[in-house]
């Protein structure tokens, strides 16, 4: 679940988890109307990790286990998953931010949930912490659990997720599989030692548009053309490219495009 700050990601998840009262609309979990019993089968961390600061990590998890009705034996298991077993007897308030996030993931995993909801799980972490959390998420995803991830780290979403949705000012502006990102026209970054490379590239039948960026040229290709076609064309002209890179359209780009499209649309409808 993607969206700029304040687009309603946490509010949406809050409604699904029963802490925000919806003004209208409805939702179901697992095909049934949601009750507090359904929530026990979902592991969720919204925004920041929340625990009793004066209790130890172990005691906090014991409390969560009581509420969720999870067996006590799971506590040691999830502490191992997030590698917190050594610090489990320390008070929660002595934990670093990274450890707090990890404890939050551990508590979400306690009842062997069907669905895991993680809201900005790497927020405010240093690169090491981010890497740790990413490894944990991938490990959990490999176990076959459904993960709903709200994040700013588009790169991460692209790597971990299969589907994505984009929110803007509380409205869903796009949803679809992540695999669809990057389909469509290809852009190729190219450079070769030739006096008139620009004119030459213009002549290539697959060129949709041409842009100079630094020393390189950015060639946007027509739908059915690919980088190898461009390469073959140049080679045929007796030119060997010294630099040829296919730019994959990233989720980040797509994200920004969709948002600006939505922006334009709302401007149009308003005027």
């Amino acid at each position: 679940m993607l969206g700029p700050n304040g687009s309603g990601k946490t509010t949406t998840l809050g409604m699904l988890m029963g802490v925000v009262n919806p003004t209208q609309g409805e939702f179901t979990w697992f095909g049934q109307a949601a009750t507090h019993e359904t929530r026990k089968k979902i592991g969720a961390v919204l925004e920041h990790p929340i625990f009793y600061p004066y209790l130890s990590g172990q005691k906090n998890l014991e409390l969560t286990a009581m509420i969720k009705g999870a067996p006590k034996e799971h506590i040691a298991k999830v502490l191992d998953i997030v590698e917190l077993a050594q610090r489990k007897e320390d008070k929660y308030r002595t934990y670093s931010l990274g450890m707090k996030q990890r404890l939050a993931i551990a508590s979400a995993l306690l009842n062997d949930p069907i669905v895991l909801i993680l809201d900005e799980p790497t927020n405010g972490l240093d690169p090491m912490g981010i890497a740790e959390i990413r490894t944990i998420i991938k490990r959990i995803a490999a176990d076959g659990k459904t993960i709903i991830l709200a994040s700013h780290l588009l790169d991460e979403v692209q790597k971990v997720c299969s589907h994505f949705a984009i929110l803007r000012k509380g409205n869903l502006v796009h949803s679809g599989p992540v695999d669809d990102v990057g389909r469509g026209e290809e852009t190729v970054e190219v450079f070769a030692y030739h006096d008139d490379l620009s004119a030459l590239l213009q002549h290539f039948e697959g060129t949709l548009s041409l842009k100079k960026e630094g020393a390189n040229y950015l060639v946007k290709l027509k739908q059915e053309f690919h980088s190898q076609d461009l390469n073959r064309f140049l080679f045929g002209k007796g030119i060997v490219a010294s630099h040829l890179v296919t730019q994959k359209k990233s989720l980040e780009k797509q994200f920004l495009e969709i948002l600006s499209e939505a922006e334009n649309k709302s401007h149009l409808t308003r005027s």
Partner: protein
Amino acid sequence: MLHLLKVDLKKMISYRTFWVVCGLYFLTLAFTTASGMEFLKWLASKGAEFGTSLNISRIPLYHFPDVWQNLIFISGFFKIVLAIMVVISITNEFTYRTIRQNIIDGMSRWEFLLSKILTNGLLSITSVAMVFIIGLVTGLIYSPASNLEYILTDLEFFPAYFLEVFAFLSYALMLGIIIQRSGLTIIVLMLSFMIEAIIKVNIPDQAEFLKMFFPMESITNLVAMPFARYAFQEIQDYVSAASVAIAMAWTFLFNYFGYLKLTKSDI
């Protein structure tokens, strides 16, 4: 039910503030109620200095069945300490936002409130048990006639005392849920009696009967002040059904208002 009580106790049992406040409560309660004779002796020695003699054995402070109402009336003053503990317990949930996580983890809002109400009940029962034991021990020590008939007289003050503490703790819980900040809640809690007194003063004489319906008044009315009887004055040495009904209605309302606030607002 028991499960919910256990959940709330789990939060408290490793919380040092809880033990300190409860420890102070039960210690001061025990010392104050048990030291009535020492107080009378001190009073007598002061009186002797001024040439008036006070025969302390003529004041049956700890005699059955007087002891029950005497001790319960005094104990009633200390419920504010317990109420502050309740305020800390509920406002912590809002400051740390743990109430949010409790709901996310699968508690319903009603279950959350019920876990707090059950703890209130447990604290009230513990207070009752404490006062009963102190009354029984001091009564057996000081009472000249400790036959069973006297001991078992006037025990209806205990359910009334339970209601008094439970009603006040319900009030504290409701305040905490509405205000959500501990400092402000404690101040409002302590000023409640004064604010109510100011309102009551402004009630015209014709509407005098309205006073007994005020929440703090109804809680205080459950066990009337007994000591005037030692100055040969008439006192209310029973629990009036009307005061019980009014206090019960308020207790229900306090918890119901808490429930309304909790279910209607975003957490």
